[in-house]
């Protein structure tokens, strides 16, 4: 009896469970199909829509901070070295003779770029996290003044001009350049730069300032990109010239060459328009140096060799006699010594065709590369003593500054700033991120396309099942935590999957990154916060009326005449907040002639204002073009009823995300 009763109970329970599971599953699927507007949708995780709070994202949590050296500047007498420690909100002062750190001063806001006045009395600090420039008194490192500039200032240059002293600040986040008067500290002009003005150098004692723009701009999906060197007159604030570094990006180092009238730019020469079939010979990208001569002629020469690459050229300095340049290669942990006299001699006899072809000849650097000096991890900023005898190399991920004797090219020692963060998995992951040795011949590293984890604004044609059928826009890694799956086809469930063997096969052409390092890399990426697209002083402020109207459009469920917008074509359904993606594949009418499939991963929109171009292959140069040029039959949101004002409102709103 008991057995029967038990059997009955078990059977009943099993049936009830089955009904609940089946019914629940059916109901859940119905719910998902209704809410997504996608009747074809299979059962998916609830987290596609119910995403939780951004506060729980890895990047939103506290993390260790490190003594990573940023910008450096030497006192006029060459005895003291000032070092920006942006991650610690500090500026350090070191004794060049003893290599000891003498003082540290708190400078809130991510101090990154440094400049001294002619007497070495005032230290100007570009604080990238708060969009400000601070002035410190070098006698006590006390802050004396502070002024707002553009978004994310990265470098600052001091120059005397016919109009008085000026400071030129590169605002990397707002694509403009601030010109300040130091006394009193005030912004006197702001001029448009290229994309991501990143570093500045003073030429001819202040006659003009050259600004390196890190990212390339391009005039269309299949047009060669070019990074700009902005030349401005700091006295008038007028733009004198905008030099184009053809097919160059990540041009973040700049240095004037005394006695030669040149300006040097470090750069990566990309071949993003060429399908990726190999890494060798710079087929994906190669490091180079751009020489801008006084007459505006620009010549690019390679820093890589025929069978070896030196990725992420960053800081560059030229010796006071103008005969040598030093270039830090952040991905390869070397400083390259360049013979400028040889280049000068070559330039004097080279034909225009020779000059144009030089950057293509990977064997060319053999002529003028004098040495490759090994450094610690991720050398970035460089500084030379006023007499040129000492080279200071900021080993950013080792928390140290290497000092090199420029005569012997031998290391003299290190200024130790921190412990290198060896126990911090995020920092370890950043090392992987910047390490080119995981790529064939050290051709590039993650950072080569994702500076600061963000985009380079380019589309690349990765090796797929064929050639030329995989043109894809580079997507930002900032704020990607929680937005899996990755890749435009949505096939990679984790970053490890994305960046592991698959990447090794289609891109890096080496063994995959070993699992421990791959985990560290994923940890680093997941801790990258979203890119800030609005000025610091606007963070947390209410939306402007235009932005609010745009938001209303984004969340609109009906047209103005009351007709409902299908759920599958409401902005907020696919780009569901707070991540602004439902992490599903969507077809928005953008399949290209050689795209194998019509559906693509729904990208998240956090920081979208700074990640142009748009759509899976980067065909839309601006947010507007998504709807003005590439919208078909209202497949990418119902936009046909928008007026120009409404489109503008939408763009204004998206730029706040």
């Amino acid at each position, binding site marked *: 009896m008991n057995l029967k009763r038990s059997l009955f109970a078990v059977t009943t329970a099993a049936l009830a469970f089955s009904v609940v599971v089946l019914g629940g599953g059916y109901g859940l699927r119905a719910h998902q199909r209704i809410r997504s507007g996608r009747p074809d949708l299979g059962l998916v995780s609830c987290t596609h829509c119910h995403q939780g709070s951004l506060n729980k994202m890895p990047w939103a949590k506290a993390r260790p901070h490190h003594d990573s050296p940023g910008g450096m500047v030497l006192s006029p007498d060459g005895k003291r070295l000032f070092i920006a420690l942006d991650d610690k909100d500090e500026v350090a002062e070191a004794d060049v003779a003893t290599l000891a750190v003498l003082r540290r001063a708190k400078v809130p806001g991510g101090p990154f770029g440094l400049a001294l006045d002619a007497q070495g009395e005032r230290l100007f600090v570009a604080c990238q996290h708060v969009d400000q420039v601070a002035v410190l008194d070098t006698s006590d490192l006390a802050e004396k003044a502070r002024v707002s500039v553009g978004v994310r200032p990265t470098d600052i240059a001091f120059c005397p001009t016919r109009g008085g002293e000026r400071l030129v600040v590169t605002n990397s986040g707002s694509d403009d350049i601030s010109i300040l008067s130091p006394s009193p500290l005030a912004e006197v002009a702001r001029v448009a730069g290229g994309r991501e003005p990143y570093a500045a150098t003073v030429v001819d004692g202040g006659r003009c300032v050259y600004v390196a723009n890190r990212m390339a701009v391009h005039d269309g999906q299949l047009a060669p990109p070019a990074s700009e060197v902005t030349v401005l007159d700091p006295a008038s604030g007028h733009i004198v010239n905008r030099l184009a570094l053809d097919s160059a990006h990540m041009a973040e180092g700049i240095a004037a060459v005394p006695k030669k009238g040149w300006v040097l730019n470090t750069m990566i020469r990309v071949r993003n328009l060429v399908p990726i079939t190999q890494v060798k010979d710079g087929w994906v990208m190669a490091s180079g140096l751009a020489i801008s001569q006084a007459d505006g002629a620009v010549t690019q020469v390679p820093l890589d060799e025929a069978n070896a690459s030196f990725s992420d050229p960053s800081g560059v300095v030229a010796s006071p006699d103008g005969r040598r340049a030093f270039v830090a290669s952040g991905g390869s942990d070397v400083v390259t010594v360049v013979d400028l006299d040889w280049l000068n001699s070559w330039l004097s006899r080279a034909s225009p065709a020779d000059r144009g072809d030089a950057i293509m000849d*990977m064997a060319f650097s053999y002529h003028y590369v004098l040495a490759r000096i090994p450094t610690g991890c991720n050398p970035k900023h460089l500084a030379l003593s006023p007499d040129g005898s000492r080279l200071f190399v900021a080993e950013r991920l080792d928390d140290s500054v290497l000092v090199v004797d420029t005569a012997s090219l031998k290391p003299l020692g290190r200024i130790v700033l921190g412990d290198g963060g060896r126990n911090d998995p995020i920092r370890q992951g950043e090392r992987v991120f910047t390490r080119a040795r995981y790529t064939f011949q050290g051709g590039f590293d993650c950072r080569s396309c994702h500076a600061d984890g963000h985009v380079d604004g380019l589309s690349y044609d990765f090796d797929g099942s064929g050639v*030329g059928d995989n043109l894809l826009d580079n997507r930002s890694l900032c704020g990607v935590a929680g937005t899996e799956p990755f890749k435009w086809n949505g096939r990679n469930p984790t970053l490890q999957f994305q960046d592991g063997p698959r990447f090794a096969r289609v891109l890096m052409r080496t063994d995959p990154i070993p699992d421990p390092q791959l985990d560290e890399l994923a940890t680093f990426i997941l801790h990258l916060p979203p890119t800030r697209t609005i000025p610091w002083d606007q963070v947390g402020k209410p939306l402007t009326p235009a932005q609010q109207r745009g938001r209303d459009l984004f969340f609109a469920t009906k047209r103005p005449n009351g007709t409902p917008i299908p759920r599958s074509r409401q902005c907020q359904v696919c780009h569901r907040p707070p991540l602004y993606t439902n992490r599903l594949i969507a077809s928005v009418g953008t399949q290209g002639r050689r795209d194998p499939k019509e559906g693509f991963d729904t990208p998240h929109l956090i920081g979208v204002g700074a990640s142009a171009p748009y759509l899976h292959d980067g065909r839309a140069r601006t947010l507007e073009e998504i709807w003005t040029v590439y919208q078909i039959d209202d497949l990418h949101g119902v936009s046909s009823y928008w007026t120009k004002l409404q489109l503008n409102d939408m763009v204004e709103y998206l730029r706040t995300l």
Partner: protein
Amino acid sequence: MTRKTSASLLLGAAVLLLAACDPQAQQGSIVLTQVPVGAPAPQDMTVLDARYPPGSRVVLLSPPFGAQAVRVLSEGLEAAGDPCVSWDGRWVYFAGKDKDRQGWQIYRVAAGGGSPERLTDAPGGAMDPAVAAHEELVYSSPVPKAGRLWASPEPPSLYGMLPGKAPRRLTFGPDAAVNPTVLRDGRILYVGAAASDSRRAQPHLCLYTVNNDGTEVTAYAGQDDGVDTVRRPRELGDGRIGFLASRGHEPGASEWAEGVRSAAPFATRANLLPFPGQGCRSVEPTPEGELLVCADVAGMVGRSMTANAALFRVAPGAAELGAPVFDDPSWNSIEATGIARRDEAAGHTTTVMPAASQGTILCLNANDSCEPATDGTGSPAAQLRITAIVGPGQLRVLGTVPVASDGSVLVRLPAGVPLGLDTLDGAGRVLRHQPPVFWLLPGENRACVGCHERRSHSPRNVRPLAVQTDPESIGLAGKSYSR
């Protein structure tokens, strides 16, 4: 004595015991190929028999390199030579000839000594061992008859064999691929013949690289310069690639060491050593940045004109060869390499898709060339003609594909056969001719800047028109339009 201390002592004793039995070689040891002076060459010999006549042996030479420090590693073999050392320094690979089997195969032996283990069973024999990433053995097979290395009807190809796995063929060229060595970037550098239509008796030998999955065969150095014969390339660690050069292909021809800089290999071919180096038998780098050179001592001060080959250690910038570090007058010391742990070469994640039968090639601009077109008119290419060697001596035109207006071409071609390309003008006249010399592997995607383009040049950053449409497909039987 505490338990902890006892355990430590026991452990220490065990380590010492194991160390005593460890087949590892002493720090600074050298593996050497010794060929008996005056040994007669056998009849019907192969190239290896000529190089390593019976009695040749691979030995371990431990410091301080006296004659008594020699330990034979190729024990039990009729002849042996061409040693190379594993990345961890624990194993020595060499080519050996078993008395019973009468053939050359690749053997492995613990660096400290032991019984050689045969690794290959290659039809026609195997030679020229090298080690790639993941202890993958690379070798060349079959072993041709002496004097027929570059005229063999079955030219040796390179193979790769991972431990425990079957060998994979890596090269598919029309000529021999020999003397492989593995570069730090993971590629296999080997000696091949420059592309040519004629099966000349004396081809121009030069260096090529190929990935360790057989993809991306690429000219490395020597295609356009130097004497016709090169041998034994080695990456020296100072940014140079060293190799032996000689005039003519006769066995025993005097060789000398040359080198190119990897930074500009097509522009820097020069003598490797700053002093006369005739009679050089091998050059190998040491971890300390020196060179191990095996060279004839004939004609040296105090030596007769018929003396043997000895081992020298040459410091960077040395003005002369100096005194040999090892010299046994009854042996020719012809090949020496140091035993040491080295950084393993980079690996390569294969792009080969074994199930596929074709690869794809993209030429960015068929008109981009550093050679003038044969017709001299400057006409742009209108078509690309594809040829292949489909069997011994069988050259077949597989078909033609149109060249886009920007000169680009995209086409799928059969894998695993030597392929040649000719650009044709609108009237079908040949503008530029490339005899079959390269190959594609299944699923390989390959691209080139142009036809006979400049060496070591990057492509321009231009989107080729040819990729706007799906590629045409050409099989061994000709053109087909299915994907």
